[in-house]
C-alpha cells in the first residue's frame, strides 16, 4: 500500500512541524486559540494540495533553473484565492489570522513539498502527499492550540473546560508570545524523548 503510506507519513513519522521543524512562524503565531489553528491548518492544506497538483502536472514544462520562481507564482495564486474566499465566508477568522494568510506563500512546508515531492512525482501521489502533510500540519497546530487555549484561557474551542476559579485567573502567559515559544520547546523535547525510547 504505497499510496496509503504517502498519505499517512505526514501525520506522525514526518510531521512537518514537530519532526521537520518547518513552517514555524504560523505555528506559533496563530495557535493562541483552537479555532484559529483549525482555520490556518485547513487554509494551508488547501494551498498545499492545489499547488502540488498544478506543479506535478507542469513539472516537465518548467526549465529547472527557474523552477523556484514558477513554484512561488503557483503558490501565491492559490494563497490569493484562499485570502479572498476566507474574507468572504469566514470574515472573523480572516481578521484574526490577518497577516498570516498572505504569509502562507513563504511557508517553507509548501515550497518544500513542491520541491521535494511534487516536482518529482505523478499527480495522484502528489495529491495524497499534499493532503497528508497539510493534515499533519493542522494536527500539530490543533495540539499546540489546545494546550495554549486550555492553559491560557481555561477554554477549548470557546467552551469552558476548567473550573470557574481557574478561568477567572488563568495562566495568561500561555496565550502570550513567550508561552508559545516555551510550550513549543517542551513539546519538541517530549517528542524527542518518546522517539528515543522506542
Amino acid at each position, binding site marked *: 500500500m504505497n499510496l496509503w503510506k504517502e498519505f499517512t507519513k505526514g501525520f506522525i513519522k514526518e510531521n512537518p512541524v514537530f519532526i521537520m521543524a518547518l513552517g*514555524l*512562524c504560523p505555528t506559533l*503565531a496563530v495557535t493562541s486559540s483552537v479555532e484559529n489553528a483549525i482555520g490556518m491548518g485547513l487554509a494551508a492544506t488547501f494551498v498545499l494540495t492545489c499547488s502540488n497538483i498544478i506543479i506535478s502536472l507542469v513539472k516537465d514544462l518548467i526549465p529547472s533553473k527557474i523552477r523556484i520562481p514558477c513554484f*512561488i507564482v503557483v503558490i501565491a495564486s492559490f494563497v490569493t484565492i484562499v485570502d479572498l474566499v476566507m474574507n468572504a465566508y469566514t470574515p472573523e477568522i480572516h481578521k484574526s489570522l490577518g*497577516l498570516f494568510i498572505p504569509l502562507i*506563500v*513563504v511557508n517553507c512546508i509548501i515550497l518544500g513539498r513542491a520541491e521535494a515531492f511534487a516536482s518529482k512525482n505523478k499527480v495522484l501521489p502528489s495529491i495524497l502527499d499534499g493532503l497528508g502533510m497539510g493534515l499533519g500540519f493542522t494536527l500539530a497546530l490543533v495540539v499546540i492550540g489546545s494546550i495554549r487555549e486550555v492553559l491560557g484561557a481555561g477554554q477549548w474551542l470557546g467552551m469552558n473546560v476548567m473550573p470557574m476559579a481557574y478561568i477567572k485567573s488563568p495562566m495568561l502567559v500561555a496565550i502570550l*508570545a513567550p508561552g508559545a515559544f516555551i510550550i513549543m520547546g517542551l513539546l519538541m523535547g517530549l517528542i524527542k524523548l518518546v522517539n528515543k525510547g522506542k
Partner: protein
Amino acid sequence: MSFITQIFTLAVFAIFVNNFVLSKFLGLCPYIGVSKKIDSAVGMGMAVIFVMTMASTFTWLIQEYLLVPNHLEYLQTIAFILTIASLVQLVEMVIQKTAPSLYKALGVFLPLITTNCAVLGVSILNIQENYNFLGAILNGLFSGLGFTLVLVLMAGLRERLEKSEVPEAMKGMPIAFVIAGCMALAFLGFSGLNF
C-alpha cells in the same frame, strides 16, 4: 511631535516593543536555524537589514504607483513576493560584482532570505499601517535592526549553551525554543513603554 521624536518613537517600537521575532513571530526559521554561531548570525542580520530596507522601498512604490491606480490591490501577494524574489537575486548579483568581500560574507544567506517571512511581512504591514514613503523605509530598516539584535543575542546565548549540561532530549532545538520564550518574556516588559 517634532520629526526627530517621531523617528525615535518609530525606532523604539519597531526594535523593542513590536519586535518582529519575539512579538510578531516573523522570521523564526532563520532565528532558530542560523543562531548557532555569532559570526553567521551577524552576517545573516546584515543581509536581512539590507533586504528588508530595499524591499520596503520597492514594494511601497509598487503598491502606490502600480497596484492602486490600476485597482489591482488583490494581486498584492503575488506582486510583492515576485518583487522580493527578483530583488534578492539582483542584490546578490550587484554585490558579487562590486564588493566581492561583502559577497563572501553575505553570499550564503541571500538566497535564504526570499523565504524569510519577515521580509514579506514588513512589506505588507507597511501598506496595512498606512505608512508614508519615508515611514515605510524607516520601518523596514528598524524592523531589520530589531531582528538582528535578537538574532545576535540568541547566538551568544547558544554558544554558551554548548558548554552547559542540558538533558539529552532537550538538546538543540527544544532548548532553543525555551530560551527564546524567556527572551520574549523579557521583551514583553518593553510593552509598558509609553510616549
